Structures are given as structure tokens and as C-alpha cells.
């Protein structure tokens, strides 16, 4: 189905409720709908048009037009089409029908704009706090434009996260907020009978860094790429690329071919080192430290290569809106080929070990199952989706950088377990090596930066999908005044994937939970609270910072040295 067909079908069904529909950029269909028809339209797009829900963004447009807006992003990947559903809301008390009842994957996205912008999703099934700290005062919405970026509300004591009640007879096993296999804080409360998980609850966002707020209140268009790169500690380049391409789409900047190829090369190098890093961590989770050490040893030359190209192992700082800041000179090409050849040989050996090692396969096969139906229902992305047989890859479906010119094999597995996700990543690693080779061979000559002297006017929109190692990364920008966006929305791949965890660990053994978590390669962000759960009584007690400090000093039953 082409974009024109999609337009025609939506128009036929919702003609009266639509106030606007146009193709903002190739494959990007933007429409505005009356608020009362929103849920029906979302149900139609998700249920009948087989669209995938991407994310929602709340917009505070009061300084421009006196109203709030919500944009729900959908994608029809086989048609290379993205559909943006805008609703405009009252500037005083913005309320919108929740689409979570019909699109379950919208759960977090709607809770997020409820907290950050104060746009209330009506009939949301789980309106608990998601992003902000538990003691954040009600009624303060930090992403509203009139909220200063550096305002710190007073901390409060005695406010707690409202955990779900465990089912009768189940004990609570906390995983997190600090846990050996979670490299960043996240808190899963597992409800356990014996060794079997019967349910779970999640609290995350422990240190929400307010990066989007900085983007629309402090930084300028060309400073944001450097902050965007720091969103993730492993796959930062995907974020700066994603932001830059969204901005370039908004401002209609044509990036020179050489810059697009260099982006592609860096993205694929990043995927290679990210997948090797993941493989090591996943092996460590199940106790296989030899694979951890060997995978990271194999990974090291790739890091050195990145340092030679960009001056840094991580945070390459190469992207600007309009192109890249550093070239990959011909002298480096033999070096790149040498590193790729070594990595390819050694990664092949590891692939052989992983696929052929009986105990390893025993620990991965059938673990953390996610059926194709669930994967589609929960809108998971990346290797998590491809391991469940969902044919989805932003490099092919929504081409960016130079991917439109580089043929790509999308790796699919049907089993939907941790083993499938592992094999998808390992085979992708091989595919990435061949992509870098192709890109180097075809690397065009020419400029690195686009010539752009004009001003970026306000009110322009741009989106970009980038296939990060963990899955699809999505950025949305709405340009504003003062050389900075009015709104910059980031959705990292772990955002949808983490929402699938409760489905994946239901009925699993406790021992399989860490590797199931590991198998989606989650990326969280740091915490300042501690919660204890008394397994005998099920009582939950949350200690605040002051109380903890006091307890530490008093030493209660401990012999204090002070």
C-alpha cells in the first residue's frame, strides 16, 4: 500500500473528524484529528491498518498558538510510511482520550506526557507515576515551557512509589534498583511462587536527566548533537545521527553523500562493538565469563579504530546538523579492513561456540519467550522483535544516512526466545562487518558539511528512525525560536522493549529473569532511593535519603566506629 492509498483509506473512514492531512516529507503522513475521534482513529490504525505504535509526544504550544498538542507516532514499516496523529488541546486544562486501552504499547508514553506536561490521558488503565521522582510535587510539569530548566522543588519525605500488590501466596523478590546484572538502576519486583515468577512490577526512570528539557531551553541546534550522543553510554552515535537527520528533514538540508557514508560507517562500527559488549554481558549473566572476556577482547580493536577515526573510543562528537566534522581519510581504510578481518574471524569462532555449546543452549533456549503476536501487540523493536519473527529494520524500512544505497540482509528468527535474540545479534554483527566494507568501497568524494546559510524558521517538524544496536531509535523535533527547538522528543529502543518484560518473564524461573532482561539488551539510566521488602510480611518500607544517613550514623544494632 502506498502513502496515497493510506491517505485515501483514512480519509474515507474519518473524513469528518480530520482537519488536516498532508505528506510532510516523503513517507511521513501528518494529520490532525478532532480530539473526540482520536481513540477510534488509533484503534483503526493499530488494529486494522496494522500500524506499529512508535511513541507519543506532548507539546506545549501556548507561546505559539495558546494550546497544547499531543502527537502519536505510528509506522507502517513494510510501506516505509510513518503516520503522525496530531490533536490540539485546550491551553488551560489539557485533557485527551487515552489510547492505551486500544494500543497497549502507548502506556508509558501517555503517562510520560501526563507527568511532564500535565496533559491528562482520560481512562488510562495505569495512571501511576512513571518518570518523575516519588516526592516530586503534584501540579509541577517540568516540560512545560514556563517551567525553568534549573528549578529544583523541595525534596519531601514520606512519599512512596505505589507498588502493585503481589498475588496471594506469592513472595516478592526484588531485582534492583541496584543489582549485579543491571548496569544501571531499575527496579523489578518479582512476585514469586517457589522459583516461578507469577507476576512483576516495574519502577524505573530513577535518574531522569531532563535531556529533552535542556534541548528546548538551554542548548542550540548544533549543541544538541553532543548532548544527544551522551543519552546512551554505548550507542550514543545513533542518537546524534537521529537528531541531526530529524533536523535536516525539518530544515530541508541536503547532506553531502560523503557525510552520509561516514555516518553509516560509524553507526555500523558502533553496532559491532555494542553487540560484542552485549554478548559479553549476556554470557556473564549466566556465569560464562570466558565468553565475556573473549568477546570484550575481540571488541577492543574496534574501540581503538573508533578512537583513530574520531579521537575518542566513545562519544565521537562527529555529527552536526548538515554533516559530519571528521573525515575518514584513505590512509585509515587498510587499518579498518584489517580490524574487520580480525573481528570477523574471531566473531565467527564465538558464533560457532554459542550455537554448538550444549549447556549454553540449555540456558538460552525457550527462555524469555515472546510470541510474534505479543511482539506486534507490544510494539517491540530491534533484535527483540526480529528474534520473534517480526520483520522490522529501520535501516531498510525508513532509510537514513546511506542505507538507501546499501543493500542489507535483515536477520530474522522465529523462535522468540533468548537464543533467537542472541543469534540475531551475532549474525547482525557479520552483516555489519560487510556493510562497513561496502560503505568503505563506495565512499564518495566531496564535502563533509552541507552549505546552509539560511535561518531555520519556527514551526518546522522533522522525525527520524535510526536502527540502533538495541532496536529502533526515534527522534522528533519541532523547531522554535532562538536557534533551538520548541520540542525535541527522544525515544530510545529500550522504551518499548522494557514494556515487554512482564510478558516475557511470566511463568519463568527466577534464574531465567536476569538473562531474559539481558536478552533485550536494556539501557536504563542512576538512583537515590532504597526500598526494602519484608518477605515474611510483605511489608514495604521506603527509606529516604535523610533517614538512611541517620541510620548509618546511629548504627542501630551495629557497633559504630564513630
Amino acid at each position, binding site marked *: 500500500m502506498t502513502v496515497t492509498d493510506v491517505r485515501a483509506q483514512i480519509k474515507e473512514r474519518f473524513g469528518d473528524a480530520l482537519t488536516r492531512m498532508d505528506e510532510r516529507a516523503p513517507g511521513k503522513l501528518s494529520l490532525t484529528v478532532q480530539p473526540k475521534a482520536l481513540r477510534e482513529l488509533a484503534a483503526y490504525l493499530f488494529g486494522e491498518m496494522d500500524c506499529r505504535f512508535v511513541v507519543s509526544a506532548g507539546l506545549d504550544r501556548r507561546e505559539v498558538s495558546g494550546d497544547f498538542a499531543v502527537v502519536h507516532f505510528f509506522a507502517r514499516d513494510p510501506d516505509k510510511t510513518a503516520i503522525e496523529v496530531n490533536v490540539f488541546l485546550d491551553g488551560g486544562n489539557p485533557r485527551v482520550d487515552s489510547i492505551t486501552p486500544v494500543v497497549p504499547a502507548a502506556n508509558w508514553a501517555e503517562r510520560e506526557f501526563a507527568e511532564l506536561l500535565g496533559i491528562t490521558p482520560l481512562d488510562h488503565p495505569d495512571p501511576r507515576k512513571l518518570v518523575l521522582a516519588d516526592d516530586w510535587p503534584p501540579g509541577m510539569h517540568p516540560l512545560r515551557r514556563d517551567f525553568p530548566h534549573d528549578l529544583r522543588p523541595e525534596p519531601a519525605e514520606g512519599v512512596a512509589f505505589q507498588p502493585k500488590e503481589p498475588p496471594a501466596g506469592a513472595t516478592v523478590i526484588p531485582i534492583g534498583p541496584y543489582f549485579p546484572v543491571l548496569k544501571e538502576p531499575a527496579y523489578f519486583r518479582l512476585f514469586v511462587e517457589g522459583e516461578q515468577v507469577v507476576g512483576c512490577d516495574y519502577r524505573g526512570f530513577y535518574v531522569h536527566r531532563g535531556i529533552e528539557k535542556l534541548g528546548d531551553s538551554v542548548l542550540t541546534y548544533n549543541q544538541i548533537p553532543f548532548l544527544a550522543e551522551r543519552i546512551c553510554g554505548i550507542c550514543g552515535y545513533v542518537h546524534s545521527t537521529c537528531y541531526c537527520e530529524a533536523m535536516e528533514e525539518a530544515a530541508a538540508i541536503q547532506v553531502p553523500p560523503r557525510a552520509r557514508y561516514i555516518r553509516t560507517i560509524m553507526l555500523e562500527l558502533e553496532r559491532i562493538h555494542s553487540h560484542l559488549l552485549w554478548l559479553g554481558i549476556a554470557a556473564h549473566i*549466566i*556465569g*560464562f565469563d570466558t565468553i565475556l572476556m573473549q568477546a570484550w577482547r575481540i571488541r577492543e580493536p574496534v574501540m581503538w579504530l573508533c578512537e583513530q577515526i574520531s579521537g575518542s573510543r566513545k562519544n565521537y562528537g562527529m555529527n552536526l546538523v548538515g554533516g559530519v566534522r571528521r573525515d575518514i581519510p584513505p590512509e585509515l581504510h587498510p587499518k579498518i579492513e584489517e580490524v574487520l578481518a580480525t573481528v570477523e574471524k574471531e566473531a565467527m569462532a564465538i558464533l560457532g561456540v554459542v550455537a554448538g555449546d550444549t549447556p549454553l543452549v540449555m540456558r538460552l533456549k525457550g527462555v524469555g519467550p515472546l510470541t510474534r503476536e505479543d511482539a506486534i501487540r507490544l510494539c517491540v523493536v530491534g533484535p527483540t522483535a526480529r528474534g520473534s519473527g517480526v520483520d522490522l529494520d529501520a535501516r531498510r524500512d525508513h532509510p537514513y544516512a546511506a542505507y538507501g544505497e546499501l543493500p542489507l540482509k535483515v536477520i530474522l528468527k522465529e523462535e522468540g526466545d533468548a537464543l533467537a535474540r542472541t543469534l540475531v545479534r551475532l549474525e547482525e554483527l557479520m552483516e555489519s562487518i560487510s556493510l562497513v566494507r561496502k560503505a568503505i568501497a563506495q565512499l564518495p568524494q566531496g564535502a563533509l558539511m552541507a552549505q546552509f546559510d539560511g535561518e531555520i524558521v519556527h514551526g518546522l517538524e522533522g522525525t527520524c528512525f535510526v536502527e540502533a544496536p538495541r532496536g529502533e531509535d526515534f527522534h522528533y523535533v519541532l523547531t522554535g525560536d532562538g536557534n533551538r527547538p520548541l520540542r525535541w522528543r527522544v525515544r530510545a529502543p529500550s522504551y518499548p522493549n522494557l514494556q515487554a518484560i512482564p510478558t516475557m518473564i511470566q511463568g519463568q524461573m527466577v534464574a531465567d529473569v536476569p538473562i531474559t532482561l539481558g536478552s533485550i539488551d536494556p539501557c536504563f539510566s542512576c538512583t537515590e532511593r532504597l526500598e526494602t521488602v519484608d518477605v515474611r510480611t510483605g511489608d514495604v518500607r521506603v527509606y529516604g535519603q535523610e533517614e538512611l544517613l541517620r541510620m548509618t550514623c546511629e548504627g542501630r544494632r551495629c557497633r559504630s566506629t564513630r
Partner: protein
Amino acid sequence: MPLYPLMAVINAGLALLLSPLLEGIMRKLRARIHSRIGPPIVQPYYDLLKLLGKEDLRAGDPWLGFAPILALASTLTASLLIPLGGEAPLAGAGDLLVFLYFVGISAVAVIFMGMVSWSPYGFLGSSREMMIYLSVEPVLFITLITAAVHARSLKLYDLVLWNHAMGPQISMVIAAIAFFLVLQAQLGRLPFDIAEAETEIMGGPSIEIGGPKLALFKWNFHAKLLIFTAVFVEVFIPWPKIFQFVPDLGLTLGKVLLTLLVVAGIDAVNPRLRIDQAIVFFFGVTMVSLAGLALALVGS
């Protein structure tokens, strides 16, 4: 019951003082397999000294401090019941059973420690430890009884002498294999370090202890390395033997080291199994060891 004071000192001394070195060598091998340089082989001594020098925090349940002491004490007592190069220092009729009791007490102390830690991870670790103990202990028992049936004695040293004199019998080979297959679990090594499982339950039973208590707990694990492996090589691989204490002790320790290197190698190339998978495995090993015992009963 004759007691050999000098040999008692040697056995307990080796279990206490040599075993950290064995651990250090195993760590070094593991590091080499990882392509790492690894810690110096005396690192476990440093670790123990450091932990022993720390403040002993008496937090939590008072019984928590008792469990590691009980575990190490029973392991050391068990060390007096095993032949190391010669007859066991506390040798007596039926020392095989007493040995099994004492290693049992040591395991129960660890389970107890997890129970009194009042941590969900401790509970899970203890429950796993118990399942492993209950499925591994029969194998230990059956394999040693297989040798006892042949030797018509429950003295461990008689089993050694009998096996040395008679040469490898089919049933003894089967028993040896079965014993070796559960050695990894007895020593808390991969793929069976399920009760500790750092990445799943953060050390399990030991989660709430630190300082000197943790030192004793670790020391117990080090001592078990020597004791279980020594029983294995003495009873099931007694050759060669020249019946002089010092060279025989040297031979035994050499065989212990070689066996532990194999154990460390297996540890380095395996992931951790799930408890249910491990129990299925141990059940299979139990069946194999029972077959060995049946063969021993009909005399082969």
C-alpha cells in the same frame, strides 16, 4: 580409635594453609583461559587476611556469625577423617560415614546461614543449596559405598588399599566417573555454582556476611577443594603408591592439583545451569552410580 597427632596437624594444616594456594592456582588458570593475566597465585591469602582484619559487624541475626564457624569447623574435622598419603589421623571403623556426616554438617551450616540472613536472596540460595545437597550427597554416598562393598570395610584407608591392590574394576571406574561429575557441585564451581549465583541472587547464603565471617566462609570453600579432591584421588586413583608417607603425600597433592586444574577448566568453559536442569543431571549421575554399586554387589 587410634589418633596420629602429627598427621592430624598435617591434614588440618594442609586443609587450612595449602588450600588457598590451590584456589589461587585455579584462579590463575581461569584468568589465562580468559586471556587475562590474573591475580598472583597467593591472592586468596591476601583476600583472607584482608577480610580477617576488617571490623566484625554484628548486624542482623546473631546466629549469622555462628554459621561460618560451624561450616569451617566441620570441614576441618572432616579433614582429619581422610587419608592423605597414609592412614587418616582419626581413623576408626566406619570413618567413611563420619566423614559424610561432617561434610553434611558443613553444608547444612551454609544452608542455615542463608536462612538466618533474612534476605530473599539468602532464602533462595539456601533452598537451592539444599536441593543440590540432597541430590549430590546420595552420589557421594553410593560411590564410596561401592568401594566399601569391594573392600568389605567402612574405613576410607581400607578402600584406598583395596583399590590400589586390585587395580581398576568396572564398578570402581563407574563410581569414579560419577564422583567426578558431582565434584564440580561439591566445590561450588560452574556449571553448578547455582546456590551462590552472583548474577542471579548476589551470592545467596553469604549475602549478609562480611569481614571475618566472610573470610571463614571463603576458607571453608577453599578447604573443601582439598578435602573432596583428596578423597577422590585417594579412593579412586590411588596409583602409584610407595607406602612412605612423604612421597605418597606429595603424589596425592600432585594428583589433587591436576584434578583441580581440570575442575577449573570445566568451570571456565560452562555457563551456570538452572537448578531444575542441574537436578535432572544429578539424577542421571545417581542412576549411573547405582549401576556401579549393583556391579560391585555382584563382584565386578
